[in-house]
C-alpha cells in the first residue's frame, strides 16, 4: 500500500492504494469520480482520458502512484458550476453523444486537441487526433462537428477572460 497525494479537480487529496492500482481506479473506486470510464484493457478506447498537469492522459494506462504530486482534472471538474465547458456545450448542441459512455474521454481528449492546435484545427486533423478514442454510437460525424464548433467557442471564451 502507498499513499498517493494529488490534486483532483482543484482539491488536494491523499489516498491509500495498493501499489498496482491504476489512476482510473483511484478516481472511480476511491474518489467516486465515476465519470471517467473503462472501455477496454489495452489503452485503445480512450474512455478513461483525464488531464494530468494540463495534458490528456489515459488513466487506465498509468499507476495511481505515477500521478503523485500531479494535478488531475476529470470530466467532473471542467464546468464552472452550472456553466458548462464550451466543449461540453458543443457536444450537447451538436448531438455529439448517444449512449454517453465514451463521451467523458472524448471531451477530455477534444479539449486537449483544441489546446494543442488552436486555430489550425480542421476536420482531417480532428479525425486524426481522435484516433485514440473509440465511439460505437455516433459514427464520429457529430463528434467532429462538436470539436470544430467548440474550438471556436473556446477561442471566444479565452478572449473574454
Amino acid at each position, binding site marked *: 500500500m502507498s499513499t498517493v497525494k494529488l490534486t483532483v479537480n482543484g482539491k488536494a487529496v491523499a489516498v491509500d492504494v*495498493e501499489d*498496482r492500482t491504476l489512476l482510473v481506479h483511484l478516481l*472511480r473506486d476511491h474518489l467516486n*469520480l*465515476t*465519470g*471517467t*470510464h*473503462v*472501455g*477496454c*484493457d*489495452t489503452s*485503445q*478506447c480512450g*474512455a478513461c482520458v483525464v488531464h494530468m498537469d494540463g495534458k490528456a492522459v489515459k488513466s487506465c494506462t498509468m499507476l495511481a502512484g505515477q500521478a503523485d504530486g500531479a494535478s488531475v482534472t*476529470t*470530466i*467532473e471538474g471542467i*464546468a464552472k458550476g452550472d456553466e*458548462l465547458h464550451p466543449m*461540453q456545450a458543443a*457536444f*450537447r*448542441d451538436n*448531438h455529439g*453523444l*448517444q*449512449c*454517453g*459512455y*465514451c*463521451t*467523458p474521454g472524448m*471531451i477530455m481528449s477534444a479539449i486537449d486537441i483544441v489546446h494543442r492546435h488552436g486555430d489550425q484545427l480542421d*476536420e*482531417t486533423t*480532428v*479525425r*486524426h487526433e*481522435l*484516433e485514440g*478514442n*473509440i*465511439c*460505437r*454510437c*455516433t*459514427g*464520429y*460525424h*457529430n*463528434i*467532429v462537428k462538436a470539436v470544430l464548433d467548440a474550438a471556436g467557442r473556446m477561442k471566444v471564451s479565452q478572449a473574454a477572460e
Partner: protein
Amino acid sequence: MGVEGIGARVVRKEDKRFITGKGRYVDDIKLQGMTHAHFVRSPHAHAKVKGIDSSEALKMPGVVAVLTGQQIVDDKVGNLICGWAITSKDGSPMKMGAWPAMAPETVRFVGQAVAVVIADSKNLARDAAEAVVVDYEELPAVADVHAAIKSGAPQLHPEAPGNQVYDWVIGDEGATDAAFAKAANVVKLDVTNNRLAPNAMEPRAAIADYDAAEEHFTLYTTSQNPHVARLVLSAFYNIAPEHKLRVIAPDVGGGFGSKIFIYPEEMVALWASKKVGRPVKWTGDRTEAFLTDAHGRDHVTHAEMAFDANNKITGLKVKTYANFGAYMSLFSSSVPTYLYATLLSGQYNIPAIHAEVVGVYTNTTPVDAYRGAGRPEASYLIERLMETAARQLKVDPAALRRTNFITTFPHQTPVIMAYDTGDFNASLDAAMKAIDYAGFAGRKAKAKADGKLRGIGVSCYIEACGIAPSKAVGSLGAGVGLWESAEVRVNPVGTIEILTGSHSHGQGHETTFCQLVAERLGVPISQVSIVHGDTDKVQFGMGTYGSRSAAVGLTAILKAMEKMESKAKKIAAHALEASEGDIVIENGEFKVAGTDKAIAFPMVALAAYTAHNLPDGMEPGLKESAFYDPTNFTFPAGTYICELEVDPGTGKTSFVNFVAADDFGRLINPMIVEGQVHGGLVQGIGQALLEHAIYDANGQPVTASFMDYAMPRADDVPSFNLSHTTTLCPGNPLGIKGCGEAGAIGASAAVINAITDAIGKNNLEMPATPDRVWRTIHAA
C-alpha cells in the same frame, strides 16, 4: 410543430448528465458489503472438464467462495434457453444442446466459464481465479461452418448430429426452379458475411443483491430489455418468481443487440449472491466482451438470380450456412431465418424465391442479433447480386434497380413480408442527385489520370422493423409477444411522467418521447419525465431492439396519452360547463373551441386529484396505461451511394463521398435520427472495411482485443451527406417506420460495390482490408 414538438431538432434532455460525468452505469454503482466476481474461463475451444481444484484459491485472504458449474447444475438453475422455435424442412424441431450457465462437464468455446471466484475486491477475485486449477482434457474443435458439417468433424452436442441445428426452407421451390428453367440470364454469387463483435463501449456488467429476509433479488444489469430479463430469469432459470426479482437497467452504454440476451454472468451473480449472502458485482473487461458477448452475422451463402430478356428478375435461389457458435443464444434461431430470408426480395419485384438456411454449431462464441440482425445479411446479398448482375448484363446498376423496383403497395413478397408503403425511386433519385451520379464518369477519368482507381457503389436496402406483430411472430415460432406498454401519470401539479417498456441506451428516448407529449399538450418538455429501465417502476415492456421504440413504444405512449386526454377533456368540460366534444387542447390549455373560455392543464390535473368537482361517477386521478401491438412490421428503405478511391499501389480505400437517402416515415427529432444513421453507417462501413472476429481452425479467437479487432476510428470514416424522402407508415398512427438499424443494413454493400467497381473485379470479401484489396487487384 412547436419548438419542442414532433419534427423539432430538440437537443437532448439526457445529455447534461453524460457530458458532466454524472451518468449512472452499472459499474458506477456500489452496494454495502459488495463482493466481486471473476470468472474462470476455458482457454480451450473444446474440452472435457475433468476436475477443478479450488483449494489454493480458497486459502487466499479475502476470497469468499469459489463456485463451479457442477454446483449451479446441482442447485437446479436452468439451462440457457433459445426463445424462437424453428422447424426444419423435414418437420423436425431444431436440435439444441444444453447450455448451463457454467460448464460442469464440457466446454465448447474459448471463454466459456467453468467456475467463479467471489472475493472482497476485484483484484483479489482476479488473483484467486489464477489460482484455480482446472484439469481439462482437450477435444478436437471446429470453427468453420463448412468444416463443421463435413463427416468426421468434431461433434459439439449429441442432440445435434452433424452439428446441424436446423435445415430450414422458405418460399416456393417449384416456382423458383421453373423461373430458372426459363431464364434468359442467370447471375451467380458466393458471399461470406463476416463475423462481427458488437463492442458496445460499456462492457457488460451485473450487480446482484439478495435480501434473505424478503427472499427478494435485485439485479442491476446492462440490458436493453430488463423486463424480458426478469421474465426469462424467473420462468426458465429458476432464480426467483417475478415478484421477488427486480431488474434495473440504469444508464446503459450502447447495446446494438448484444445486450438483449440474458447471459450466464447475470445468472451466476444472482445465484452467487444468495449463496454468499452478500451483493455480487461482475464487470466484464474488453477481452471478456470479445469472448462472451454474442457475435453477429457469420453467414456463408451461394445465391443465384434469374432474369428475363428485359432484365426483369424472375427468380432467386439462396442457400445459406449460418454459424451459431457453440450454443443457441436467446433469439439466435430467428436471425438467419425470419429476420433474414423474409427480406430477400429487397426492393424488387421478384415473383419466385426459394431459400434454404442450415444452422450450424461450431466451437466459437454464440452468435445472435447484432444491429440489423439478419437484415444486413439479406440486404448485402441482394445488393451484391444486383451489382453483379448489372456488370454481367452490362447495364447501369442504378437503372437495373429501377427496372425491378416495386412501385405499387401494398406488395406481398414471396417470403412472408407484405410491404405497406414506400417510394424506392424517390430515395434512389435523391441519392443519385446528392452524389452527382451523372458526373461520376468524368470524376473517374480524372482520378485515373492521378493514378487512383475511383468507384461508385449503390445499395438500395429495405428492412422490416417495428418488431413486431405478436400474433404473426407467434405463428412463426416466437416465444414472446412483441407489443409495448406505456403509462402516463399526470401529477396533481400538472407535470407528467411517462413510463415506458422501451429502454434507451443511447437512442434519446428521454427527449423524443417528451416531444410527443409537447406536441399533443403544448407543455414544455421540461415538465415531462421519461421513466424506464426498472421492473419495479414500469409494469412490463419488451425493450429496445429492431428499431421498434418509436414505431411500437411511442405508439403505446400515444395510446395512453389519448386515454388520459379523453378523461382530462371530460374534467375540463365539466369545469368550464361546456360539452366534452367542444374541448380542444392548445398550448397547454384546454379550451372551449371558438370561445375565450379555457383552463390550464395543471388546473385540470389538480381538479382530477382534489376531486372536489368531478363529473358524476368519475374516479379521481389522472393516470392511464396502454398496451400497443402492431398489426404489421414497418419497412424503412432507402438508397446509399458511396464514391471512393483505391490506391492500386497499397490497396487502401479512401472515401470521396457517402450519401444516404432514407425513408423512415415521420421523424420525431431529425437530429437524433441523423445520429442513428451516422452510427449505423459506420458499423456497416466497419464491417465492409475493417471488422472481422476471426478464429483459427482450432477455435482459438485471434481477435480478442481492440489491438487485434479493427474498430472504426474517426479517421477511418467520412462525414456523411444525409437526406430523407417520406412515405408515412400506414401501420401506426404516427406514421413512423424506425431508423435505428438502416445504416448498418445498407452501408456495407455500397462500400463493396464501390470498391469492386473501382478495381474492376467483382469478387471481394469483407472486410476489404488494403491487403485483401491489393491482392484482388493483382490476382491473375
